[in-house]
C-alpha cells in the first residue's frame, strides 16, 4: 500500500505534467487545473491503498477519463449556449488568443545560458507545445503517455483502453506528424 508520503511524492512528480497534458487537450488553464484536481482526489480516495507501482497507470487513466468527461459536459453546454445565443446578440468568434500563450512556458533560465539561447529554447518549446495541441486526440494521448510520462506500450494500452497495436500506430503517426510540423516551422530536433 502507498503511504501518505509515497502518494505525495508520486503526485508531486506527475501533477505538472498532468496539468500541461490537460492544457494540451482542453486548451483552458482553469479547466485543466480542475481536471488535475479531480484526478488527484479520485486517485487518493479510490486507489490510495494501492501499491505505488500501480499509481502511474491508474492516475493517467483517471486524467484521460476526466478530460473526456470535460468534453462531454462542454458538448451539452455548447448546445445550450448555441440555443441561447441565437436569441441574444452575442460575441463573435473573433478571439484568436491561444491559451498556451498565457502559460509560463519559458521555465527558469539555465545557468550560463545566453539570452539568445534562452529565447530560442523558449520559442522551440512554445512551437512544440502548439504542435502537440494540434495532434488528433488519441495520437496526442498515446504520444504523451509513451514519451513524456514514460509508460510502456502495455501500460499505455491499458490506460487508453485499446490494443498495444493501436498504441504503436498512434505513437508512430504522432511522431511523424509532429516531426513534419516542426520541420515545416524550421525546427530540426
Amino acid at each position: 500500500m502507498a503511504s501518505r508520503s509515497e502518494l505525495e511524492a508520486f503526485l508531486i512528480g506527475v501533477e505538472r505534467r498532468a496539468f500541461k497534458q490537460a492544457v494540451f487537450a482542453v486548451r483552458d488553464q482553469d479547466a485543466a487545473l480542475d481536471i488535475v484536481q479531480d484526478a488527484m482526489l479520485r486517485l487518493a480516495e479510490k486507489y490510495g491503498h494501492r501499491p505505488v507501482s500501480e499509481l502511474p497507470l491508474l492516475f493517467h487513466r483517471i486524467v484521460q477519463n476526466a478530460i473526456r468527461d470535460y468534453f462531454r459536459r462542454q458538448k451539452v453546454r455548447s448546445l445550450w449556449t448555441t440555443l441561447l445565443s441565437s436569441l441574444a446578440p452575442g460575441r463573435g468568434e473573433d478571439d484568436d488568443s491561444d491559451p498556451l500563450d498565457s502559460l509560463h512556458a519559458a521555465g527558469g533560465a539555465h545557468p550560463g545560458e545566453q539570452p539568445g539561447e534562452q529565447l530560442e529554447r523558449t520559442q522551440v518549446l512554445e512551437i512544440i507545445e502548439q504542435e502537440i495541441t494540434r495532434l488528433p486526440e488519441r495520437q496526442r494521448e498515446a504520444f504523451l503517455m509513451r514519451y513524456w510520462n514514460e509508460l510502456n506500450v502495455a501500460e499505455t494500452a491499458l490506460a487508453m483502453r485499446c490494443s498495444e497495436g493501436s498504441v504503436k500506430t498512434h505513437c508512430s503517426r504522432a511522431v511523424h506528424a509532429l516531426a513534419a510540423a516542426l520541420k515545416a516551422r524550421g525546427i530540426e530536433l
Partner: protein
Amino acid sequence: MNENQFGDRVRHILNQGLELDSAAAERLRLARERALEHQRPEPAPALRWADNVLGNLGGWSGVSLRLLLPAALLVAGLLTLYTWQQNRQIAELEEIDTLLLTDELPIDAYLDRGFQDWLKKRAAEQ
C-alpha cells in the same frame, strides 16, 4: 533519428516547460493536500481480497456488468422455471380433481377398503 530518439528529445524539451505561474502552482499544491487528506486507508484483510477481485473485474462498474447482470439473469430464469413448474403441478391436480368429480363412480368408493381390495384382485386376475 528513430521514434524513440525523437520522443526523448521532445520529452527533454517539454520538461523545460514545467515551470508554472505561482497561482497555478499554488492551486496544484492545495489540490494535492486535499487529495492526501482523503487518501483511502488500507482495507481489512478480508475486504482486501474482495477489493482485489473487484479491481480485477474493473471496479464496481465492471462488477455490475460482468457479475451482477448475469447473476440477475440467472435468478430471473430460475424464478420463471419455478413458477412454470408450480403452475403445471396445479393444472395436473386440477385435471385429476375434474376427472374424479365428473366420474360416474362416487368419490367415496375410493375410500372404501373393500372396493380397493376388489380393484387389486381384478388387477391380479388380469
